[in-house]
């Protein structure tokens, strides 16, 4: 097996029935809801599923669905885990470990139904005076960090100093993505906004205003993946997996090798491009996990779509907006569409919709989509390249 190129395809894909605020379902129930929706999407007999990948206990999910799998993956590296699951699933299918994999993800990130801890991002739920021997406990928590809002963007001022990125350009990221969300009915926020609106929104953690931070929602999604040969027997249009990548960097943001660039983004995306056999010019559609406004900026550069220091002006000038040459985060992203905590699954879902040609704000003529995930705070990365073009051989 020399490459995972065209070895497998996504045949079933669906999000949870509801998205946003779902006060009456636990995260477990949402996993099942998403899984059942994905199974219905491709009309598969659930007993044909022989592999399960999820960040929850795979036994709990398998047993709930009445499946005894012969392959599991429980990789948990934050919000990019599901891109990594897809990569591992393709490898497992290609090597004969299993034939058909369910990847399922869901969270009650907003309402925390059935959860023991408070809403993600709610600083009041973080206990004071605690004693902690972990590395983040010893060397970051003591300085008053409050989760991703106070850590994820730690390198941005340095990035600005080194590249000349302006606050206006940073604010132009949510502005651009809202133009996509404006035609996406399931997006939590769809009203067009301006750079001034971003500046006028509450300061969360300088230099990040509220509108430069992701939403906190409930929801989930699931995928059914099988071999490219089998994919043709399903009613849905196969979304072939051309290339995949994964990586990890530092478990604590203050110890990244370079705080103005993600080593994991670079490693993961390079592998995915190499495997896919396509170039940047072949990419019609791009998803870059946007927990905060700087992520698409880092991503565009670390993935090699633009040169160092060019991403801010590239976005500000509209290149990633509707009508631009590189449509990006076309569901509105974590900043406008939804973000339950681990957004990667939603990025995959939008890539699949665009490649199938059934997105709410569809880009004309999408053949090939690149999906970039991040896990933790630049802790991990996953990359996937999708296409609807049939294999030539």
């Amino acid at each position, binding site marked *: 097996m020399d490459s995972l190129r065209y070895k497998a395809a996504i045949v079933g894909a669906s999000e949870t029935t509801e998205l946003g605020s779902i006060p009456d379902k636990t995260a477990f129930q949402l996993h099942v809801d998403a899984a059942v929706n994905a199974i219905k999407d491709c009309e598969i007999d659930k007993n044909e599923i022989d592999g399960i990948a999820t960040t929850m206990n795979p036994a709990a999910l398998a047993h709930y669905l009445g499946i005894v799998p012969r392959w599991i993956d429980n990789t948990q590296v934050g919000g990019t885990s599901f891109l990594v699951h897809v990569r591992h699933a393709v490898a497992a299918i290609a090597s004969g470990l299993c034939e058909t994999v369910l990847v399922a993800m869901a969270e009650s990130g907003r309402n925390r139904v059935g959860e023991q801890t408070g809403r993600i991002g709610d*600083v009041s739920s973080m206990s*004071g005076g605690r004693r902690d021997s972990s590395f983040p406990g010893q060397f970051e928590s003591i300085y008053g960090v409050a989760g991703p809002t106070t850590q994820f963007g*730690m390198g941005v001022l340095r990035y600005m100093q080194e590249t000349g990125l302006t606050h206006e350009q940073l604010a132009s990221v949510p502005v651009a993505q809202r133009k996509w969300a404006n035609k996406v009915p399931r997006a939590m926020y769809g009203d067009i906004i301006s750079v001034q609106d971003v500046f006028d929104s509450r300061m969360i*953690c300088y230099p990040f205003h509220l509108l430069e931070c992701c939403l906190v929602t409930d929801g989930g999604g699931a995928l059914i993946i099988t071999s490219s040969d089998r994919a043709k027997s399903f009613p849905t249009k196969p979304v072939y997996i051309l290339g995949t990548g994964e990586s990890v960097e530092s478990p604590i943001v203050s110890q990244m090798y370079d*705080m103005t660039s993600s080593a994991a983004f670079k490693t993961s995306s390079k592998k995915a491009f190499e495997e896919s056999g396509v170039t940047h010019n072949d990419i019609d559609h791009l998803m870059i996990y946007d927990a905060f406004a700087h992520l698409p900026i880092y991503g565009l550069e670390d993935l090699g779509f633009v040169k160092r220091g060019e991403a801010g002006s590239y976005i500000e000038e509209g290149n990633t907006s509707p009508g631009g040459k590189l449509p990006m985060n076309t569901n509105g992203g974590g900043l406008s569409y939804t973000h339950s905590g681990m957004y990667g699954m939603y990025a995959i879902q939008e890539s699949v919709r665009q490649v199938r040609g059934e997105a709410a704000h569809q880009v004309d003529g999408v053949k090939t989509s690149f999906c970039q995930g991040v896990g933790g705070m630049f802790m991990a990365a996953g990359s996937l390249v999708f296409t609807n073009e049939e294999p030539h051989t």
Partner: protein
Amino acid sequence: MSASYNKPIPVPTPESDVFWEKAKKHELWIQRCLSCDNPFFYPRMNCPNCLSDKLEWFKTAGLGTLYSYMINHRPVPGFEEDAPYAIAIIQLEEGPRMMTNIVGIENTPENLVLDMKLKVVFEDIDDDIAIPKWEPA
């Protein structure tokens, strides 16, 4: 420790006990590899450059520059009176970077200029722990 100290408290481990022992004496010590001469932080039992276990602790000059920062407007419990407060990254003169808070100056974007020179100071929180913080040099 003042009864009102409600911020998270570090618990030293076998790898980091020297760091915290020295901090208690208001000295900032980090490790250096005796095989490849690489200085590094956070504390480890092997050099992240060459994996050698021949390491030594050494006292830094306690000088550095402001590498980057954020200013948090939503304080975690214990930090209410500090808000808005900067969470910053120091570039040590010796090379490694570490997170900190900036004291002795109002934490505003105007005051906090990248690459400004800083020196380490220590906040005693109880008989065992002093936390390194940084102020304008």
